[in-house]
């Protein structure tokens, strides 16, 4: 059966609620379905004690979920936009992530924080950010960013079952994407990347919505005889360098692409690791694609001028291959 990204998240939540009584959903408007409709109908099905609306209190609801996780619940918290995770940083970083370590291993925090990120159609500077890089810098967290519906289904279920705090980042541009779910497929392991397209000339590493751009770029490159391999990282913390290394040992060229601001982005870490661990494998400098250094502007024309997409990836690949550079997308 075909599902949109939103529908498939709902199904995953539904199944986990049914499977494990410790699972609880909470967040602003989640009982009303949430801002994007992901949780629609679940309060009706599981009751408003398992699917709970909260006040607009990002700090407190993150603390609430963390405290409940310490005491045997498995909360799935929705932070409506990752831009509002800024209000929960003390808890996420100073409490949630460190609790197990600071307690010398006495406790665990089986918590999933679902949030939604990225730019689309004029959401503007405070509702469009991609802030995942902050979180890969925080020991104790796990960061997952699915690239497509079926992936999101499995990864969300694995995240709920993991037993450590997971930041689960959904991209708003993917919400309407449709895909068929292969019933009964095994759940993916958190921390393992996947090869989304095989190729031999260049590796394109991406995650979240940018995987779709990378696939488009690979298709376009194929038309000019360049064979691109696309790696969907799936998990940003921890990074699966094994899959990356296998690919680069074959292609010897790599471009890393994300929508987040380039400077200080996740791509920097990946590029640094590749540059260090795979130095001798590289035939060209590591290419990086990301957002230039500005907030996301409101006007669509400006937004498009700023956001990297498949064109920017193609451009970066062609630069690596020494082909004449074309204008940015």
């Amino acid at each position: 059966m075909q599902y949109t990204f939103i529908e498939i998240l709902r199904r995953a939540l539904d199944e986990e609620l049914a499977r494990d009584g410790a699972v609880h959903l909470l967040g602003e408007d989640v009982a009303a379905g949430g801002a994007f409709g992901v949780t629609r109908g679940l309060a009706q099905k599981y009751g408003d004690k398992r699917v709970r609306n909260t006040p607009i209190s990002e700090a407190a609801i993150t603390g609430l979920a963390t405290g409940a996780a310490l005491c045997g619940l498995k909360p799935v918290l929705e932070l409506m936009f990752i831009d509002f995770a800024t209000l929960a940083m003390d808890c996420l970083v100073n409490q949630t992530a460190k609790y197990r370590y600071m307690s010398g291993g006495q406790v665990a925090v089986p918590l999933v924080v679902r949030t939604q990120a990225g730019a689309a159609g004029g959401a503007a500077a405070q509702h469009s950010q991609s802030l995942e890089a902050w979180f890969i810098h925080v020991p104790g967290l796990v960061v997952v960013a699915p690239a497509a519906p079926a992936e999101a289904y499995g990864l969300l279920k694995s995240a709920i079952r993991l037993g450590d705090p997971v930041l689960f980042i959904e991209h708003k541009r993917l919400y309407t994407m449709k895909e068929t779910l292969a019933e009964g497929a095994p759940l993916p392991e958190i921390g393992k990347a996947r090869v989304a397209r095989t190729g031999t000339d260049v590796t394109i590493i991406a995650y979240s919505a940018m995987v779709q751009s990378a696939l488009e770029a690979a298709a376009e490159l194929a038309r000019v005889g360049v064979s691109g391999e696309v790696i969907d990282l799936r998990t940003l913390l921890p990074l699966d360098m094994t899959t990356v290394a296998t690919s680069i040992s074959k292609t010897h060229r790599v471009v890393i692409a994300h929508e987040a601001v380039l400077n200080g982005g996740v791509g920097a870490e990946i590029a640094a690791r590749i540059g260090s661990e795979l130095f001798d494998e590289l035939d060209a400098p590591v290419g990086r694609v990301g957002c230039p250094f500005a907030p996301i502007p409101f006007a669509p024309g400006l937004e498009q001028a700023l956001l990297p997409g498949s064109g920017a990836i193609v451009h970066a690949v062609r630069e690596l291959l020494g082909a004449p550079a074309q204008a940015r997308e």
Partner: protein
Amino acid sequence: MAEPTLDEWKRMYYALVRIRQFEAQVQRLAGAGEIPGFPHLSTGQEAVAVGVCAHLSRDDVLFTSHRGHGHVLAKGSDLERTFAEILGRDSGLCRGRGGSMHLVDSGAGVLGATGVVGGNLALAAGAAWAAQAQGKNTISVVFFGDGTTGAGVFHETLNLSALWRLPLLFVCENNGYAEFTSREEHSNVQHVSSFAVPYAIATKTIDGNDLPTVYAAAHEAIAALRRGAGPYLLECMTYRMAGHYVGDAQPYRSKEELAAIKEKCPIERLKIRLVAEGVTQQELDEIGERARQEVLQGVERARAAARPDPATVLDHVYRSPSLHSIP
């Protein structure tokens, strides 16, 4: 307070209709796909904007929320440039960078809207602090919704502004909803004014849909602020006649609730009063039509305006010229 003259009431009537018509155009063009993002309309809440801003000068500063079009217009921002911003045009207040949720018009004392609930309450306190430190007699006003009281920074700002006796007017538009969820599911606290009590912040809960009530209460509050009496929290009970944002199907509202809307409408209510004072229906219609025409013309000019040049997308990140080249 000197009671406004009939002419002044008529001008305020005009201002109400002007905002109503403005929002109608936002709704229409958002529906038509011409407006990016997800604009939030202030339809039904116009009396708060007009009644409060009637007492402000250009030098007073105003901060508002995601539902801020009405406040900005009432404060005196140019209608065409405001609409142009909401359309993402280069002639917009923020040259198309901000949009509906981030209107700034420093010339008119509009120091900004925020898309983050509660995100600028403390900034408004900071503006009040600056006025105090500079020995000015101006005040700072911040508009926000009832749901915003769930945010910790609201309480931090109450404490700070009371402690420093800042010239800060908190105006809460209590419309009984935060997005799709009613106030009862957000808090046990019925009236936002209750939050002011521990701090001994002066406060009042009023009928925010009755323009004369808002006008009088704001007059009193602002006079106290200018006397240096410290912050004031004005809670205006109101009603959002539209959805949370354009496109909200409002399944959470009952038919009965929606049927009662007209009685709440601040324009209808002012109309009744003006008619009682002898203004003819025809004159009111004429005023309304003038407002409509002003809006339509402003909107058309805004629509015709140029879009920002994509090549300028990296401008305005920093003030210092030496920082402009960050890659």
